[in-house]
């Protein structure tokens, strides 16, 4: 087991390095794409700032508070997108049959698919999220004890694991649904958009859905509400706010099972 994980990480590293060299061959384009990724997410925040140029609070939350939600969710998604985002291309490989090439290589399939066309430009999104997060932390009226300070990196890492599980489960789904790569965008990019706003904005059923069905609320809402000293709109017991790591582990395990099921169900094109 341990050697297989090591082999997977090694293969992942090799493929990532290969794609980085290939990307840097078109240097101008790479700079533009990284800048583009930065701007793409920055525009979301510009929209929030434009909203706040007209109002004092949205759903009872001030701009630094919304920025905190925005920053934590963006960094989490950015990390997951950098490391696992390429998995959404799996459907294309299933369709055109090039997945068979990957299956023949002596390296774990998951590592190969995750590293496929590794896009370094996604650092743009992470950078932008970190900038907003830093700004919000400097503006928030929170008593920053050591525990609270540690909670911020912990929740972004757990959030990244949750999003990574969604990417993996979405890719596994494509073994059956091939052309449906866009569905997972609802949960990754769509989920990210939702988590950038306070939960008080949304209908209660929607908040229940992202807490109990697809537990994206653990990416940032629940821990962040605790940090900001806000009541959680569903009135869950206090310890739930700290369940992020457990939820992330569970989701990763579930995604791993889904992935296995998907690989087993795979039939090559034409057969």
């Amino acid at each position, binding site marked *: 087991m341990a050697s297989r994980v090591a082999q997977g990480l090694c293969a992942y590293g090799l493929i990532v390095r290969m794609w980085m060299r290939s990307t840097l061959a078109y240097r101008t384009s790479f700079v533009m794409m990284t800048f583009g990724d930065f701007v793409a997410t920055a525009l979301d925040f510009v929209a929030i700032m*434009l909203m706040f140029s007209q109002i004092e609070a949205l759903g009872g939350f001030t701009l630094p508070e919304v920025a905190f939600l925005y920053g934590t969710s963006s960094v989490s998604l950015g990390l997951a997108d950098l490391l696992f985002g390429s998995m959404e291309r799996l459907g294309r490989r299933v369709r055109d049959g090039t997945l068979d090439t990957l299956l023949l290589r002596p390296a774990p399939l998951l590592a190969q698919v995750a590293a496929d066309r590794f896009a370094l430009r996604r650092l743009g999104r992470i950078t932008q999220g970190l900038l907003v997060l830093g700004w919000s932390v400097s503006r928030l009226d929170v008593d920053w004890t050591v525990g609270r300070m540690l909670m911020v990196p912990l929740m972004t890492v757990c959030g990244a694991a949750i999003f990574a599980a969604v990417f993996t489960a979405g890719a596994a789904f494509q073994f059956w649904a091939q052309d449906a790569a866009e569905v997972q965008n609802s949960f990754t990019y769509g989920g990210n958009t939702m988590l950038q706003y306070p939960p008080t904005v949304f209908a209660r059923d929607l908040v229940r859905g992202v807490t109990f069905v697809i537990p994206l609320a653990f990416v940032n809402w629940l821990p962040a509400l605790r940090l900001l000293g806000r009541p959680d709109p569903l009135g869950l017991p206090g310890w739930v706010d700290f369940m992020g790591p457990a939820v992330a582990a569970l989701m990763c395990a579930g995604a791993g099972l889904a992935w296995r099921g998907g690989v087993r169900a795979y039939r090559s094109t034409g057969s």
Partner: protein
Amino acid sequence: MLYTAVAAGSFRRYATYRMATVAGVFTNTVFGFIVAYTYIALWDERPHLGGYDQAQAVTFVWTGQALLASVALLIGGVGELQERIRTGDIAVDLYRPADLQLWWLSADLGRAALQLLGRGVVPMAVGALFFPLALPADALTWACFLLSTTLAVVVSFALRYLVALACFWLLDGSGLAMISGLACMFFSGMVLPLRVFPGGFGELAQLLPWAAMLQVPADVLLGARTGGSLLRGLAFQAMWGVLLLAAGRLVQSAATRKVVVHGG
């Protein structure tokens, strides 16, 4: 006649991507819900922001989701054309007894028509089911909206065609296409209606070509443009369409004079 055949072929081609269409409808609908709730919160704080009431603001959200695929609001180029320029296949296209720009315009109109039906109708219907929307009751306004949407597709194509032609010089145009797509996303009103943008910045944004892609058709649909204002809106779209198509022709003639296909 040739070009209607191209458009029809493109329409049929996109009709075969059924699973992708269903997935797209699902995603557009999810995003519609999320954004609609944030707009409701915003308009709760500031009723009549940008001259819209809350129902109009929510209608704007669902119009954006309905037109997203059809008007290609997040896409900055013409992917296939860029790929053909990069690989050199464009040389074959230039030999054909058809005009390059008209060929791709027809193909894009066929695609847009299918995606308006396939990816526009259902999200709008779901939106109307769950939120009170400000949709017009008379057929004439719907007809104006369709005309405005067609013009929006033409402007969108004309701009993306220009970006794609830049590949003749850049070879890899994905960076430029991305930046152009972002400008489109922001200045079309997809991120926030242009009427909500503050002061002079908002007025400037409403004069740019991207305003013709979502802001104008949405205003037509939700009744913020009637009478003379409606006609001015359509004329504004037509003007940008003609200007950008003309610019595309100029760049096209310059590009085809310099084309050197890899491999000699």
